[in-house]
Structure formats: C-alpha cells, structure tokens
C-alpha cells in the first residue's frame, strides 16, 4: 500500500506546468462532463424528471376530457392550449426543486468545497451546472409540451374544438410551454446557489414566481402595466393561442420570461464568487 505504485515519484517539488497549456474549451468541456456525471448519477434526478414528465401528460388529457364534455358553449371560448399549460404547474414545481437542489445539496453536505477545490473558477461551475440542467429540463419540457398537446388535441378534436400545429401561433405556444420548465429550473438553480439551503431556496423560488402577482391587483391600468413584467403574466402571453392585448406582445414577453432566470444567474454568479465557501 504505497502511493508510489500509482506513478513514479515527481522529480521536482514543483508540478510540471503542463496544465497551463490546457485550452479553455477543453477545460470547459471537463467541467460540463463533471456536472453531467453529477446530475445523472443521482436517483432523485430520474424520479423528479419522471414526475415532471408523467404527471402533466396524464393530467392534461384529464383536463381536456373535462373541457370537451363541459355543458353549453363554455368550452368553445376556452383556449384549446390551456389544458396543457395548467398541467405544467406540477412539472414546473418538480424541476424548480431539482434546480434548487443542484446547488443546495452541495452546500448542505459540504461537497461544494470539494467542487470548488477541483474547479477554483466558481463561475465555471455555475455555468456548467446551468448548461447541464438547462439542457435536461429543456428536453424534458418539450417532450411534455408536445406529448400533452397531442393528447389534448386528440380529445378535443372529437368535439371539433382542437387545433393543429400548423395553425398560426400554435407551434410557438407549445414550444413556449416546454420552455417554462427550463426557465424555472434555472431560477431554482441560481436561488440554490444564493440561498444555499434547500428549504430556503424553494421558498425563494415560489416567492419569486407568485409574489409579484400581487402587483396585478394595482388599480387599472397599473395592474396590467406593472403585472406584464411578472413571470406569470409573461408565461401566459407566450403560451396563449390568443395573447392578451393589454400586456406585452409575445416576443417581448419571451424576453421578459428569459430575463428572470438570467437575472437570478447573474446574482448567483456574484454571490458564489464573493463569498467564502
């Protein structure tokens, strides 16, 4: 049992400078690979993704059935994309928690110190975690969005209420549905890095999503003017077949929707680089 077995002893006390020659792209790939291994080596990741994918697909068809069988003409006035959106709530919550845990689990166990010792550039760690989780939740989100859409329209078309992807605005709205998982997961990840505790991070995430909704209660027209900057209203605009006219246009709302996670990530970048780990 000696360390000598592993490799001949270093000739000089100072390590060779080979590492300095490693290009940035290679180092970035290393950190990405590392974070991918971390995310995919936990059972909780798969359970969370299963919940995030299966629940909304099942639920959306249920909502569609209810809607299709609603008495009177009520159903006709309802957005045919709504069942898909409503059912996403559970998926959003699940991936939001997954996002928070990506950092908070490392902080609470102390593993984050091993991570930062291996990769002293903390912003690289934040970027790699975001990229890996972002990719996974984007794929999961689009799978859910299109699967739900297919099921819902299959149900609704029986009552001639359905729409098809080729109709104007439909494909974009369904794509935006899937994007919501990505947005909330990245916000969760950033908040996990800032708050460093799981429960606190989840509370902060829920707070950021729900609390600004209070602004919509301001007297008109201020409710809508301010409310259109909130995550919930922005999400509503980009996922609706017939966007509201008193809020931002979908293109602007999409920018706002992406600005939220971007802002949280920026704050997280400042927090992780300037605090002791």
């Amino acid at each position: 049992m000696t360390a000598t077995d592993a490799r001949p002893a270093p000739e000089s006390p100072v390590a060779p400078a080979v590492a300095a020659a490693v290009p940035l792209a290679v180092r970035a790939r290393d950190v990405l690979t590392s974070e991918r291994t971390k995310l995919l080596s936990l059972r909780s990741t798969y359970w969370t993704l299963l919940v995030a994918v299966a629940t909304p697909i099942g639920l959306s068809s249920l909502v569609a059935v209810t809607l299709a069988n609603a008495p009177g003409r009520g159903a006709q006035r309802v957005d045919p994309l709504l069942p898909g959106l409503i059912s996403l709530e559970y998926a959003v919550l699940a991936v939001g928690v997954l996002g928070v845990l990506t950092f908070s689990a490392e902080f609470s166990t102390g593993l984050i110190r091993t991570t930062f010792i291996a990769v002293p550039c903390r912003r690289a760690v934040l970027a790699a975690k975001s990229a890996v989780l972002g990719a996974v939740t984007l794929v999961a989100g689009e799978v859910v969005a299109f699967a739900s859409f297919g099921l819902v329209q299959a149900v609704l078309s029986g009552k001639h209420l359905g729409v098809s992807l080729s109709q104007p605005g439909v494909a974009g709205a369904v794509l935006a549905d899937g994007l919501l998982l990505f947005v909330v997961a990245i916000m969760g990840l950033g908040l996990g890095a800032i708050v460093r505790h799981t429960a606190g991070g989840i509370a902060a995430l829920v707070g950021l999503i729900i609390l600004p909704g209070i602004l919509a209660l301001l007297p008109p027209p201020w409710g809508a003017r301010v409310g259109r900057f909130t995550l919930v209203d922005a999400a509503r605009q980009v996922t609706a077949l017939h966007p509201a006219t008193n809020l931002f246009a979908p293109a602007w709302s999409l920018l706002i929707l992406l600005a939220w996670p971007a802002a949280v990530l920026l704050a997280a970048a400042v927090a992780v680089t300037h605090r002791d780990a």
Partner: protein
Amino acid sequence: MIEVDQLVKRFGAVTAVDGLSFTVRPGHVTGFLGPNGAGKTTTMRVILGLDAPTSGTALVNHRSYQDLIRPLHQVGALLDATALHPGRTAEAHLTSIAQSNGLGRRRVAEMLQLTGLEAVAGRRVKGFSLGMKQRLGIAVALLGDPPVLMFDEPVNGLDTEGIAWIRQFLRALAADGRTVLVSSHLMSEMAQTADRLIVIGRGRLIADTTTAQLIESSTRKDVLVRSPRAAELAELMTARGATVNREDDGGLAVTGLDAPAVGDLAAEHGIAVHALIPRTASLEDAYLDLTGESTDFRAAAAAAPSPEGAPAR
C-alpha cells in the same frame, strides 16, 4: 511547496488567523498543530482558495490557488471526509471529480484499488462507515497524483487500524518527495507521523521546527525529591550546583543533579529521603506548555459567551 506569508483572516470581529507565516517543504510530513479553534482549518481553507484572506498571501507551488489550472494535478486535499452526497456511489463521486480535471475512468479505478474501495465502488456512500469515507476522501486527494497534499484532521474518529493505515500512507507520500501537510490537535498523534511541526495558537505561529528539536528544547528533565529535612537537603544540593525549586506540596524539583547523585549526597549527610523520582516531560506536555497561553484564553472565552468557536472552525 506551500508558502503562507503574513496571512490574516477575520470573520467579522473574530480574528481566526493573525499574521501567520510559514513554509511547508517537500519530502516531509509536516504536522500542523494547534488546539481546536487555533485557525488550522481556516488556514487550510485559505490555501485552497475557499476563503479569501483578509490580508497576506498563501501560495501553492508559487501560485495563488485561484490561478491554478486543473488544480488536482498540483494539490490534493481532504478537508471533511463526510462532505459527500449520500445518494451518489463512490465511483460516481470520484468520476465526477476526476472529469473536472481531465482525468479518466482508468485513474478512478486505480484510486479505488489503491484505497481498497473496489468492492464497494458501486455502493451509494450513504451506507459508508467513517473509515470508508476517509479512504474515499484520500482517493479524491490523490486523483491528480499531486506533489502537494493537505489533510485536515485525517485520523479524527478512526479506529486504530484506520489510524495506522493513514499514518503509513502519509509517510509513503512524503518519502515519495511530496509536500504533505497534516493538521491535528493531538500532539501524540503528530509525534508519530510528522517530521516537522508547525504549531499555532489563536491564529499565530508558536513554533516552526522539527519534531525532534521540539522534544529536545521543551522537554523538562528533573528529579523530584521528598525528604523530612528538605530545607537542609536543598541547601546541600544548591552547594553542589543544582537548581532547586520548592513545589507546592513540599517536594523539591531538582535540576543539575541526577537521582543517584542526590541519593548519594543525602546518604553522605544521613538525611532520610522518602522519594527520589527522575521525571521527563512527554511531548504532550511540551505541546501544552507551548499552547498554554492560547488554551488559557479559550477557557476564559468559554466562561463569557463568545462567537469564537464557530467561525474559526
């Protein structure tokens, strides 16, 4: 090589490290000693770039840790063996860290073999004993085959077998020409492992020396003498060039004369001797003498509630 120069680290009003300077050289196991809360862990965390120093510098191989590229090839560290995600397997844990520094699965397999963890590589660390986690932590530290290694209290909580394993391991690493820094609050442990010692207390350097020198310089050697005619005997001994100190219980602490000489002297003058005990202080005593001041401070601080302990860890 690790170079710490005029390092200061404050947490709010508490100064954990207070103008500390020392150099750790390759080829030795260097013990980093001090009572709990002396600033050992904080110093190590600053060296590893985890905590930013308030002032001063800490360099590894002449560079600041933040400037190291693929640092695991230069420095290996084990701070807290229990800092693991419970749901990840030993192999996945090692693999994820290896990948971040461009190391492959073959290196991971080698480390699992070296630390005797192959059989449990696929098990989640949730069920690992402290000894197994310690081995996994060492596997992480050795991943990049670094010339500099740092271990924070590696024997804490280990059984005798585990302690022997680590001790042997540290010596092998140093014999290999590596720089090995090991912290501990136990002098007895370090006396058996370390060739050099850096002793700190209250964030300040107390001693930076070899283990042998420390024992030599601070070991007390005297003879305890008890006699019903102590005063008379003391005078005679002083006349022979000895230094005599009267202890609280009436015993005489004699230096400058060994026990046989004291006995002969007493017999010559017909003085009864009730006790004649040669005394040598242990390394542990030497250490307590050195750090006595800082321990006193800690006892006083414990009486008045103070945030000292928590952040200094």
